[in-house]
């Protein structure tokens, strides 16, 4: 179908593309962030947000606000928008939209399993879950003792089931296992999503493969950095990298043997798109890496809106909104804890 999207795209996707572009124009701008950063109290933030699209969601909140309330309401807005789009979507867009939430599902599964491991209350854990990644029997995860049970009891009914095939072991769950499970799941998810986008073809495949490749590379780097100094073997580490992306396959070989952050840097600097990210950091530093990656991601996501007639805008919009909510959370926390000097540390501007 490549090349004919302009002819047929609007039959099913036109309305939703218009909707999502409309939502995009409601994202906060640099001017908004500047104003938000000058706020003195959380009420000021509420007052400023009431002039934006978040207004209706926050207007009925009684006055002593908490950061969690703000974040919760902002997320609620995103979820409402997502649900509306999902209701209106037809195949294959609806599947595409569902794919977007699988990442949250994996995170939620991991959150609940880790929480139960540390004997936290299930209700409390459920409140912390991202609403986009909820599924019916999520609370039942607490029953499972090992991965096999986890799979057999709960996950077999969820879309995550196929991703699980690689990590079914009868070992008892512990922190390390769970982390490996998260990354294996994520790897399988990204590869599946990637394949799905390739199948869709056209501009969707083109843009999504770029965005997903970036995601995969970022995860590869993060896995490497986080596994330095742990008992994870090189082969195991190598297995967690997704089998696509700019770093695949030679970069992965090199990353697998890295022993400290500067070696990672050495590997990454061979790839021009990542050179600029690492060029900003001084040697031996990994604190700012997250932010640098986020900034690069936001840049790429914004570029997705430059083309028409493809599904990547939905992915990009959801990601941008999530980034925006992260920003708002950071700003609110800084304001609430009177740490205004650190306010710019983690805010990623979009437009």
């Amino acid at each position, binding site marked *: 179908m490549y090349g004919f999207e302009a002819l047929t795209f609007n039959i099913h996707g036109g309305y939703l593309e218009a909707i999502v572009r409309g939502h995009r124009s409601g994202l906060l701008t640099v001017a908004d962030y500047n*104003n938000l950063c*000058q*706020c*003195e109290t959380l*009420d*000021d933030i509420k*007052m*400023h947000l*009431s*002039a934006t699209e978040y207004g209706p969601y926050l*207007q*009925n*909140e*009684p*006055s002593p606000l908490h950061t969690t309330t703000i974040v919760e309401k902002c997320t609620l807005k995103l979820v409402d928008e997502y649900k509306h789009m999902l209701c209106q979507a037809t195949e294959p867009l609806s599947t595409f939209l569902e794919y977007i939430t699988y990442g949250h599902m994996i995170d939620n599964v991991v959150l609940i399993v880790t929480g139960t491991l540390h004997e936290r209350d*299930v209700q409390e854990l459920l409140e912390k879950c991202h609403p986009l990644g909820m599924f*019916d*029997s*999520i*609370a*039942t*995860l*607490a*029953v499972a003792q090992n991965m096999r049970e986890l799979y*057999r*009891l*709960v996950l077999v*009914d969820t879309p995550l089931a196929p991703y699980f095939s690689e990590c079914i072991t009868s070992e008892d769950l512990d922190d390390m296992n769970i982390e490996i499970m998260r990354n294996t799941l994520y790897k399988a998810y990204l590869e599946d999503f990637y394949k799905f986008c390739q199948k869709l073809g056209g501009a969707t495949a083109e843009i999504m493969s770029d965005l997903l490749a970036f995601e995969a590379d970022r995860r590869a780097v993060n896995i490497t950095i986080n596994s330095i100094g742990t008992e994870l073997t090189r082969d195991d580490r190598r297995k967690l990298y997704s089998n696509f992306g700019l770093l695949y396959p030679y970069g992965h070989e090199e990353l697998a043997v890295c022993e400290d952050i500067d070696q990672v840097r050495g590997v990454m600097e061979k790839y021009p798109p990542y050179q600029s990210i690492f060029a900003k950091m001084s040697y031996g530093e990994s604190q700012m890496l997250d932010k640098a990656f986020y900034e690069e991601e936001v840049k790429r996501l914004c570029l997705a809106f430059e083309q028409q007639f493809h599904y990547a805008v939905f992915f990009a919009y959801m990601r941008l909104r999530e980034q925006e909510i992260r920003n708002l959370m950071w700003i609110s926390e800084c304001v609430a804890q009177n740490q205004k000097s650190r306010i710019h540390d983690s805010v990623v501007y979009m437009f």
Partner: protein
Amino acid sequence: MAGGGHGCCPPMDLMRSEPMQLVQIIVPIESAHLTVSYLGDLGLLQFKDLNADKSPFQRTYANQIKRCGEMARKLRFFREQMTKAGISPSAMSLTQTHIDLDDLEIKLGELEAELIEVNTNSEKLQRTYNELLEYKLVLQKAGEFFYAAQSSATAQQREIEAQQVFDGSLDSPLLLEQESLADPSKQVKLGFVSGLVPKEKSMAFERILFRATRGNMYLKQVAVEDPVTDPVSGEKVAKNVFVVFYSGERAKTKILKICEAFGANRYPFTEDVGKQMQMIDEVSGKISELKTTIDVGLIHRDNILKNIGHQFEQWNHLVRREKSIYHTLNMLSLDVTKKCVVAEGWSPVFATSQVQDALKRATYDSNSQVGSIFQVLYTKESPPTYFQTNKFTSAFQEIVDAYGVAKYQEANPGVYTIITFPFLFAVMFGDWGHGICLLLVTMYFIFREKKLSSQKLGDITEMTFGGRYVIMMMGLFSIYAGLIYNEFFSVPFELFGKSAYACRDPSCSNATTVGLIKVRSTYPFGVDPKWYGSRSELPFLNSLKMKMSILLGVAQMNLGIVLSYFNAKFFKNNLNIWYQFVPQLIFLNSLFGYLSLLIIVKWCTGSKADLYHVMIYMFLSPTDDLGENQLFPGQKTLQLVLLFLALISVPWMLFPKPILLKKQHQERHQGQSYTLLQSTEESLELEQDHSSHGHEEFEFSEVFVHQLIHTIEFVLGAVSNTASYLRLWALSLAHSELSTVFYEKVLLLAWGFNNIIILIVGFIVFVFATVGVLLVMETLSAFLHALRLHWVEFQNKFYEGDGYKFSPFSFALLGEVED
């Protein structure tokens, strides 16, 4: 004010927008609030935002706005509670007791706290109540299971026993009996859990239970008929009662966890029937007890809400008002000394004394020692456009504003639209039967105006209601045009005397005009009814309507051009008069004005000249003899002169204006530097007089291209716009043909059957077709075409429409915005 609005013509209020002035008001800070409040009551001042660079929470009164927002939130909470309890707030009480904002804030806070407390109490009770209800259900349903299970078990047992008895009578081993008797004691003790689970989750619930226990469980479910109120969420949900049997402690913990995960409420249950009955009684007793408590709580809550409801509207009004006052105060700039605030805003000149009066009253009422200062500022900024409309003219003004709000004091096409719009509509919609229908509908709206305007209407009704006076005029003019066309649901009537024609002899049929002779003087008003149904009906009516459309079009376009003259004269722009208005007038009239003249001459003389031929050969071979197409002597000379004038007027429009503009610019540029040396103040005022070209760079090519486009647009537009007016004929034709079809092919056809049922059916179809197609869709299409003729063909001759509307700070407008 600048300008010579009071020239030859009587003053027309709607023709020019109200003269406006930029005023500056300096108010001492203690009376600022009261001043803004009085000005809001007056509603004739549009404040300018003097703090545009500040974000909302950095402004002076941000705190008060936050407080108002908080109070508004509480009021919304009350409203929500009231709608939940089914109490509607009583209408605005007339006794406007003065309430202080601070008192109100405290009062609202107290009420909210009380309400929340009452709510949490009753919620707790409600929860217990719902739990008990669920428990009762479980007891009943589970009791049924056990009873059924027991009875079937005993039946089985009996069967077995019967078999054994039967067997026993034969030679059966005694051992078997012993075994079966010993069975119950050997049995593993089964545990069970009972409770309620939401219906839609029951399938998944069963599946998970099965998987978790590896099938070592027995689940029994029964649907509860009525939806049950969930104790946690308080919503009505369809639920299933379940009983799970399991064996072993590990299974129990798993099942309990799963129940928790699925939001299934568990309730204890005993196997003993006697105890069951006892428990049911106990629970029922508790339920009735709780019920009375809850009722008392509800009555208490309702009382609180009713008290709130009495004053709710008043409070709501007050809070909104205060919030808007603080918003306005935030737009004012605070003096450095913080003793007074400075307001700037637009106000109509006629309101000067009213504004000053309001300021004085505010100073007096707030016991301020210093009065407010009111002064008029001079500015180059273009003031907002403000027309004082009434309920009749406002709808017509809306039609114009929808295209673009008039530039400040520009000639307002709204004045003419009041008549021309319904008239052009009626030319397309000419049928006095349909006109009467429209009139009746709109009369309903107009007579019930007071009642309807206070309530919420549907989308389409609201639109119709808003345009009721437009529709009334359209109806009246349709009746008029219908009388001229002599059509009543497409049937001609002899209203104004007998037809002028009659048959020469009895044999002549209706279908031809050949046999007709004129027996009387011409039919006095409108089209002779004899034309209808004759063979030459269409050619005659087409010729009439086509020519009429051109006459109307040329007249309206001429009006547009004349208005451009009034504009140029008003703004003292001689260039536009001499190099735009005059050549435009000449061009249009030498071509299409001449055509109109020919049409009228042809009508008066009854000549058979071919006007197409005349017009076309006027361009192709102007020197040729007209021959039989000559309508009056000297026509050829006139044509030559007109053609020459038309050709001349094109370069006349194109070249002089940009060249003269350039010259003017150069002169002014020199003059400016000259006067600057003399005195700065005067030159500043001079600058204000020549507003638009003050500092701008003069780009000759740009101005020239602009003029070129303008000229081409006009020259081509003259032809295409005239042709565009032919839509009047086309739509009128379509309308009359459609109504003829409905009348003849439906009503007359049904009549022909002489059958009452067919007649009724035919009549119903006719009514629906008339209402649906002719009255609704045709009205809409004729409306749109009339709209287009006004927006495009009429207004492009003179209307700039790049102004902005005057939106004063007014409490009266507040309610509309918020709702």
